[in-house]
């Protein structure tokens, strides 16, 4: 664990040498909302121990810095009690710790930060994984967080108390001190990191394997059509339009679109067809200029390369669309490629393209725009197929191996889905706790 929680258990004795177990009886009913003032008042009232009531102070109370957080949080856990039920409430109070360690903490100046029925707020209900839980799952857990008028300062000591209340009766444990602190690692997300590492190794491993032997690749119709489209443009002596989408260079789909542009440009160069690549993002434009230049070089046609084939229009969504539609209507490209991420402009582009009779090939990971591409383009690369496209076009071992790695990843996810469903069903049928497995595939923060 990143930071050993500073635990001071009520069982092990608190600062003033003993736990304060107070049982209080009060006869005024209208006060229930004004806890803080009330408790100050109660300090001066005679305390009587109530023996016959089953109400007991919270046991095994622990207060510590909330682990795996960015600071400003305290976590309180305590054992469940036999009296837990809808009519018993737990009240959590927070206050600043006394200036010197010798002074016993008092209830003066403490405020109520939590008030809830005693059959709620359990460790198992808190959104943490089993490997970061600091108490058994049946224990109560309450987190004091920043926000809602509450400001906990990191590094500053606080005291926290928890009382069980039933009607007018109250039993308190604490106050116990603790210091909120920020942590350097979120252990709840270790499963995420593990997936990154394992998947990374799988991908690198399958790339190595692909360098040694051939890997089968199923047919992707849209990609077979790329050559056909370029060929037709050459025959008709018309240009080819290639769009890289709305994303910037930090989006993987844009990178994929740029990589595919490289493959397409290489073939276009071989045929000496005109290429038009209007852009919305200047950085993507600059990168694509480099890529196109390189492709023409590799195709042995550096002399036909035009710097202007990649050009910038505007960053604005719809004026870009208007301009590209204008290009489609005036230059009548024979083939339109739409790769990368798209928003509402997708249909405005593809419908105009369809009206000019161009062959249209789309590839996007914007799932919300897929319906429009599928209905208006001749071929559509759906989702992950966009990422498969560069492998398909290049047949390089590195790309093929990556695809293989992705397939292995999908197989693992399918297994996780199957196994998870079986376990979840079993847990209902046989009343089992399967969180030790299911937590592994949970997105915990």
């Amino acid at each position, binding site marked *: 664990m990143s930071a050993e929680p500073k635990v001071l258990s009520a069982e092990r004795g608190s600062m003033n040498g003993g736990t304060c177990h107070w049982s209080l009886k009060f006869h005024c009913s209208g006060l229930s909302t004004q806890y803080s003032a009330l408790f100050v008042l109660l300090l001066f009232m005679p305390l009587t121990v109530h023996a016959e009531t089953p109400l007991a102070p919270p046991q095994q109370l622990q207060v510590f810095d909330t682990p795996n957080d960015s600071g400003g949080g305290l976590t309180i856990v305590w054992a469940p009690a036999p009296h837990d039920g809808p009519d018993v409430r737990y009240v959590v109070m927070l206050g600043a710790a006394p200036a010197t360690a010798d002074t016993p903490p008092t209830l003066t100046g403490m405020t109520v930060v939590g008030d809830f029925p005693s059959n709620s707020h359990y460790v198992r209900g808190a959104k943490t994984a089993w490997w970061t839980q600091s108490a058994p799952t049946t224990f109560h857990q309450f987190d004091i967080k920043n926000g809602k008028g509450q400001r906990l300062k990191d590094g500053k000591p606080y005291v926290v108390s928890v009382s069980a209340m039933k009607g007018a009766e109250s039993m308190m444990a604490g106050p116990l001190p603790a210091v909120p602190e920020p942590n350097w*690692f979120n252990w709840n997300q270790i499963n995420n990191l593990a997936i*990154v590492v394992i998947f*990374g190794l799988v991908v690198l491993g399958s790339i190595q394997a692909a360098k040694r032997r051939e890997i089968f690749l199923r047919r992707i119709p849209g990609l077979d059509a790329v050559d056909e489209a370029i060929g037709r443009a050459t025959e008709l002596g018309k240009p080819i339009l290639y769009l890289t989408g709305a994303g910037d260079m930090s989006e993987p789909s844009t990178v994929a679109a740029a990589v595919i542009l490289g493959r397409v440009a290489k073939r276009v160069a071989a045929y000496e067809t005109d290429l038009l690549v209007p852009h919305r993002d200047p950085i993507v434009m600059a990168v694509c200029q480099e890529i196109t230049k390189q492709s023409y070089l590799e195709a042995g046609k550096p002399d036909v390369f035009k710097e*202007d084939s990649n050009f910038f229009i505007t960053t604005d969504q719809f004026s870009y669309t208007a301009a590209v539609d204008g290009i489609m209507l005036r230059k009548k490209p024979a083939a339109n490629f739409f790769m990368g991420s798209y928003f509402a402009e997708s249909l405005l582009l593809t419908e105009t393209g369809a009206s000019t009779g161009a062959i249209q090939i789309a590839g996007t990971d914007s799932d919300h725009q897929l319906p429009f591409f599928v209905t208006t383009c001749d071929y559509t690369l759906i989702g992950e197929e966009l990422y498969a496209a560069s492998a398909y076009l290049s047949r390089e071992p590195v790309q093929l191996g990556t695809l293989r790695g992705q397939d292995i990843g*999908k197989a693992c996810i399918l297994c996780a889905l199957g196994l998870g469903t079986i376990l979840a069903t079993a847990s209902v049928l046989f009343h089992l706790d399967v969180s030790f497995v299911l937590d592994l595939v949970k997105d915990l923060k």
Partner: protein
Amino acid sequence: MTLLRRQLPLLITFITGILFAAQYYVPHPSSELMLTSVSKWLQIIGGFALILGVTSLFHIHAVKIRRKEPGWGYSFILYISMLGTIVIGLWHGGKETVDGVATAFGWIYSYMMVPLQGTMFAILAFFIASAAYRSFRARSREAAVLLIAAVIVMMGRVPLGEYLIPVSGDISQWILNVLNASVRRAILIGISLGAVALSLKIIFGVERAYLGGGKE
């Protein structure tokens, strides 16, 4: 020197990639601070990149005007509207309203940008209809399924449809909430594997096409 040219960009990608992947796992405020400041950095770099873009735009249209290509007059209009907006915008310090009163820059926004944008967007209403007419044909089983689902959901969304076929509202809710959700989920999982694999390859320098270097 060539080593520097080739390896330095790859090294930078590696370091920044690892650093910002690791940032996710660190809840400490300083990691949050790193993220916010680097997002500001990226905005600044994007600002410089805009110079590249505008230069390209200027160049393309300057060529058109110089060569008196067909439609060069429009390039002229583009220049004037761009320069006009810049001058007026800078004059008002980039503010659309000052003390609740719209500036000339605000006027350009409300009476030019907004209607132009809104109308381009609204053209979708026409295109969605013509796209439906062209492609919703029962050419195959898949196409038939697509068309039926679309018609049911369309029925379920308007009063007249609910009036004619009362159950269409419920069916379209079910299709959207269950069937559509499952497909979206599967697509998202597939995409993310592709995106993560690509990002990993970039960080480890296996994929370097984006540098335009090819197999240099």
